[in-house]
């Protein structure tokens, strides 16, 4: 029987071909960019819209590896730590709250009755729409930014954990009780460890939204941060800064995702997604 290398449902591309195929769109995109950039720069050497690789490298060099002459800080480092701190705080709080609420709602029908409707309601409110309210009520400092991330993702995490707990087979709970568990032990010894990996998965999925909220918040009012920088230099069309920043954000996002995936595998070997 003939095995196709690439085309058709029976295709079974060997590893080298898979890697090549995966790289292809990236290479094409890069080539397209470089071509267009060169064309524009040939016509107008001061063009800022599609900077060359060298120009971007210069910008990175200046922002990442040389202290800012005025503040004496490494701008990119400062932006990165500020943004990551906000992200970590917002996501961490969301995860803790979502876990606690979702667990209790799923396990204790009374809690579910009180909270399910309100959490569903909150999860439907578009957070970006209430962004100005957040800033006005919480001020323009860190609190409002963290609150936006929190409001944006904790309802979804809560609902996901709730669904996971509610979907645990009833038999498991009966079984735990038959082994002498009380209700507290049931919640924190039996159910909690079982939803932890799901929590990591949910956090992974929520990170995209969290970044979006973070950058939106930094765009509205901020003194530093990755989103702040992008919106700031957009003011004078510094694409040589914006493009590396976007790539950096993408890389950070990928890295965090990878770390969470690693944690999932290491900490919860019994968990098969």
């Amino acid at each position, binding site marked *: 029987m003939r095995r196709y290398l690439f085309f058709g449902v029976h295709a079974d591309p060997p590893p080298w071909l898979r890697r090549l195929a995966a790289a292809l769109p990236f290479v094409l995109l890069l080539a397209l960019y470089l071509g267009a950039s060169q064309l524009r720069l040939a016509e107008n050497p001061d063009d800022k819209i599609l900077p060359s690789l060298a120009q971007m490298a210069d910008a990175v060099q200046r922002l990442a590896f040389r202290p800012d002459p005025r503040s004496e800080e490494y701008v990119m480092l400062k932006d990165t730590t500020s943004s990551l701190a906000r992200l970590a705080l917002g996501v961490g709080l969301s995860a803790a709250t979502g876990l606690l609420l979702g667990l209790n709602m799923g396990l204790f029908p009374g809690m579910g009755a009180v909270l399910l409707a309100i959490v569903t309601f909150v999860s439907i409110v578009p957070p970006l729409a209430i962004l100005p309210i957040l800033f006005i009520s919480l001020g323009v400092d860190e609190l409002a930014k963290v609150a936006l991330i929190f409001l944006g993702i904790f309802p979804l995490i809560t609902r996901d954990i709730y669904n996971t707990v509610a979907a645990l087979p009833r*038999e498991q709970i*009966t079984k735990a009780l038959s082994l002498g568990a009380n209700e507290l032990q049931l919640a924190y010894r039996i159910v909690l460890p079982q939803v932890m990996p799901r929590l990591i998965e949910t956090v992974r999925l929520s990170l995209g939204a969290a970044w979006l909220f973070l950058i939106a918040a930094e765009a509205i009012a901020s003194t530093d941060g990755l989103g702040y920088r992008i919106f700031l230099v957009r003011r004078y069309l510094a694409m040589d800064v914006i493009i590396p920043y976007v790539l950096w954000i993408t890389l950070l996002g990928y890295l965090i995702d990878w770390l969470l995936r690693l944690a999932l595998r290491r900490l919860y070997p019994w968990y098969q997604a």
Partner: protein
Amino acid sequence: MNTTEQLSALRQKNLLHIENVYKQYGARVVLDNIDLSVARGELCTVVGPSGCGKSTLLRIVVGQEAPSSGDAFIEGAPAGYPDATRGIVYQKYSLFPHLTVLDNVLLGKVLESSIFGRVRARREHRDEAMQMLERARIAEHWKKYPHELSGGMQQRVAIAQALIKKPRIVLMDEPFGALDPMVREDMQVLLLELWEEYGMTVFFVTHDLEEAVYLGTRVIVLSQYYIDDRGAAAEQRGAKIVADHALPRRAFSTSVKSSPEFIELAAEIRRAGFDPTGARHVTQFNLSHPDSFQTLTAAESRALRAQEGP
């Protein structure tokens, strides 16, 4: 047999006692006036056609569900919510996926301790747990997680997990239902060994006739196929215990399954419970077990009333 005093004596004497139990989901009646009493040390099998309500009955005994009416007692006290008096082994979901084999077995012991005593509890009961695993012939896999085990291995662990708590009664719902025949027979033999060794009381639900006859000291047949005097539309009715009798205890060897007596016994149960055309009248059931009793309502059996007459 059915005087109030006799019933109350039975309730006090026996480990498990169920009286007048009905269970319905919405309009659908699943269990219809179940009366049942099981003595200590019995290996009582419950058999019946698929969907007749065996698991429902077991859930009521466990305390996971309350009967729509009627009462269940454990050692003379109302059954209440699930607790350590009753051990359970399900067909699946018995094991906790986040714990290793050893920790699954240790769980019952660890739960007895406070948060701080956990580590000590684990250390103290480790040997006991390993012995349980040894007995269930699964000790060499103590480090593994449940998903790394085959179905039969998982059930061995589940049995060890339930037994370490030394429950008054072990409730099993088709524990071997998902296993292939060879493994299944191994497990049956293991169960008999443990039952004998620990002097357990077992309430064992299965839809497999042979399994019920082979394992049980007593067999209860639950079935919706019966006739009573409430008129037509019998298919709307819930299941009743249509047969309840002792089984002769033979050797553990599974070879008895091919003996003529065994085959005849199985055939009789099949006629009593699995064959709609063989349905008998409520007054005609084989309820020969000494602990068996029946609380028929007037409507169910006018014939009974006529019989008992003046």
